[in-house]
């Protein structure tokens, strides 16, 4: 049963990584990066590592996405 969850999460995270690299809009790409971090956090929980899952969910999926959006906003302001 855990094997089925791991396979489904793996396919979803690979699809999200492909969207993160190839979509034209930068907003969608940054949200897809946060989604990959979220799926990685669930995979850490399946591997019996709750400390690492908590750290990856809060720092990888929360703060990294926020910093990306701040930088994108500043660049768009300066463009026009």
């Amino acid at each position, binding site marked *: 049963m*855990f*094997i089925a969850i*791991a*396979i489904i*999460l*793996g396919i979803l*995270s*690979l699809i999200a*990584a*492909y969207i*993160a*690299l190839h979509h034209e809009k*930068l907003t969608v*790409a*940054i949200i897809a*990066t946060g989604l*990959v*971090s979220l799926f*990685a956090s669930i*995979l*850490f929980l*399946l*591997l*019996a*590592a*709750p*400390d*690492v899952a908590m*750290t*990856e969910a809060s*720092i*990888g999926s929360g*703060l*990294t996405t926020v*910093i*990306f959006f701040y*930088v*994108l906003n*500043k*660049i768009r302001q*300066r*463009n026009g």
Partner: protein
Amino acid sequence: MEYIIISIGFALVLLGLYGIMYMRNLIKIVIGFTLFNTGINIVMVSIGYIRNAAAPILDAIPAAGTTPNIVDPVPQALVLTAIVIGLGVTALMLTYVLKLHQDKKSLDINNFKDLKW
């Protein structure tokens, strides 16, 4: 199960490497570095997994001589540090992107040819 998760980690590493070398937008290159980092962290945690073992939090002091049935705690301690340092490196790379954009008003990496001979 750990075989499946290790192959997911390695696939993310390869996708991140492809993103760093092939993409032209500066922000997509930084996204490639983030994917690389996440993939290698998944690989490191899944090396210490032991089947039918529990998370490394104990209920009671183990009796002298017996070993509690937990997964290996050392790779988890290393990955904890690695995730925080990955955040620091990503923040610094985005500062470089901001400064480069302030100089030439473009996010395409083919416009920055100052160091080419």
